[in-house]
């Protein structure tokens, strides 16, 4: 199968959907002349002209005006530049975008997508490195996806663009450049479905986004000890795929969740709590969560490195609960 980068995969998704549906347009900072800060909009302005627009540095207006355009029949996409800037538009996101359909008794839909590049890169420091997806699990009315590879990046972006609900699309900054197989033709990944990417019988390892790279590394380390991990790529965080998680845990009897985001109050907390509520009797070991330490992201390479997920340490901790 052909290999393309995550970034190219999102470009294909955008181009294909924009050709299909002329209501789609994109606004954000530096997306026309720069093609997006990570090149994720490169070339789109050539084909789509003023359907790709550079905005002022006004995140509340970016999100807010997409909401208004959605109410008036368009299907806007807002690029957040960095997920770290979602706080600027937080009121628009949680009090308007997420609530409008419900609060107004279903009179309207709010079909829009927020694209939010997230995660550590190389010493981008405290305000340009964050993964804040967990907050949005607590906000009814949104859907949240977070692909880990080019195929899902394409398929989930297409699904998001066709969804009539507001969708937040987290795209990891490091993953942009990574290649992977993507089939020719239509690629569509339904929102709400996790994927068992590797079967195993000893422990269920759940992750998403860049965390999947760590999950694979952990799995290989465990394999050396004869431990067979089953790996689930969550793909969608809201609504997350309860069935796939439960089925796996009932088989493996152990669970660990890995993500780059802060551990406390993270996505892992919700997944762990869900399993401890629904399937504790199947568990033969503590539910392990692996996430960032409880600090902002530090700048200096040795500190940032310490902040990152550590496959060795994760494998070590897992080995302990299996023995």
């Amino acid at each position, binding site marked *: 199968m052909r290999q393309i980068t995550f970034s190219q995969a999102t470009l294909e998704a955008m181009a294909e959907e924009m050709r299909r549906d002329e209501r789609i347009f994109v606004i954000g900072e530096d997306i026309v002349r720069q093609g997006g800060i990570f090149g994720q909009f490169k070339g789109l302005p050539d084909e789509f002209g003023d359907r790709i627009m550079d905005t002022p540095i006004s995140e509340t207006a970016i999100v*807010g005006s997409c909401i*208004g355009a*959605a109410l008036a029949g*368009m299907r806007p996409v807002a690029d957040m530049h960095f997920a770290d800037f979602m706080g600027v538009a937080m*009121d*628009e996101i949680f009090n308007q975008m997420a609530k409008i359909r419900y609060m107004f*008794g279903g*009179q309207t839909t709010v079909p829009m997508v927020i694209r939010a590049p997230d995660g550590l890169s190389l010493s981008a420091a405290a305000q340009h490195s964050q993964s804040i997806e967990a907050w949005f699990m607590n906000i009814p*009315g949104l859907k949240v996806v977070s692909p880990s590879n080019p195929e899902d990046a394409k398929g989930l972006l297409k699904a998001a663009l066709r969804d009539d609900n507001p969708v937040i699309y987290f795209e990891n900054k490091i993953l942009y450049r990574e290649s992977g197989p993507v089939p020719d033709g239509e690629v569509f990944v339904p929102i709400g479905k996790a994927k068992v990417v590797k079967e195993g019988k000893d422990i269920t390892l759940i992750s998403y986004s860049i965390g999947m790279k760590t999950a694979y590394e952990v799995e290989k380390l465990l394999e050396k000890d004869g431990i067979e991990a089953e790996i689930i790529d969550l793909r969608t965080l809201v609504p997350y795929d309860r069935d796939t998680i439960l089925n796996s845990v009932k088989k493996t009897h152990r669970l660990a969740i890995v993500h780059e985001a802060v551990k406390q109050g993270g996505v892992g907390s919700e997944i762990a709590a869900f399993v401890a509520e629904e399937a504790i009797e199947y568990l033969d070991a503590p539910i392990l969560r692996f996430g960032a330490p409880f600090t902002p992201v530090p700048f200096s390479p040795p500190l940032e490195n310490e902040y990152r997920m550590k496959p060795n340490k994760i494998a070590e901790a897992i080995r302990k609960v299996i023995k």
Partner: protein
Amino acid sequence: MTVYNKELLEKFYYTMVKIRKFEETVEKYFLDGQIPGFVHLYIGEEAIATGVCASLTNEDYIQSTHRGHGHTIAKGADIKRAMAEIFGKKTGFCKGKGGSMHIADFSVGMLGANGVVGGGFTIATGAALAIKKQKRDNVSVVFFGDGASNRGTFHEALNLASAWKLPVIYVCENNQWASTTPYRTTTSVEDISARAAGYSMPSKIVDGNDVFDVYEGFQEALAHVKAGKGPFFLEAKTYRIKGHFVGDPELYRTKEEVQKVYEENNPITRFEQKVLKDNLLTEADLEAIKNKVENEIKEALEFALNSEYPEPSEIFDDLYV
């Protein structure tokens, strides 16, 4: 000078009286404990929504505020369903999920009241962006208070609208008060419309208690916007005659101050005096309209009172498509 035909004059009066009676009814039933939550009345400011919405069609949009009943009615929403919503009934526009602060009627282009002060600026601006992209000849209007004009969203929306020349009209209802706070203690400029220049946006001040002045000012705004010249800023000077919300003890101002405005600057009385003096409408014309409104309000009230509350299980409806 604008010439007003009888139909338009009657429409002005009908709309203003309908808003006034609607609000008085809401006030009564709220004080009586039959309306849940909290409500903000539009009494005394009827001329603004009326003068603005008179020129709009269902394809034009408005964004409203926490004080949204008047905008809703002026935009042409069915007052039966509006009343039912405020009572929390299933037959209301939002099936009881929204209430007074989240009233909306998308079928007439009323895109929603907003419990977040200043929440509407960017949304209305986005609706205007859609209009422009769809190459339609419509406008998007956002009503907002003097207090709201200090929110950052004001700035971001106005700048964006001007940079992109969007068909949006910003209508400031400067009623001198933001809740308990006199606007000049927290708003750093006398005329809020003076801020428009910072976005290269034309502006105009009108007497918000004179429906004719509002109407004419809005015509100017419309002409500018429809000529593709971008947004316009209209500031309507008015006064909040009632408390901030029904039940407000109003310890921050004197009864006399309010009474004086009510007596001397009541937009409905001013309209009546003018049309009678200028022989534009007769006492009988006015009377007929008042009766019509009276009946409609009664009907709306009955509809609301007789409607069912939603079932508890409906809590899960209308979240996702």
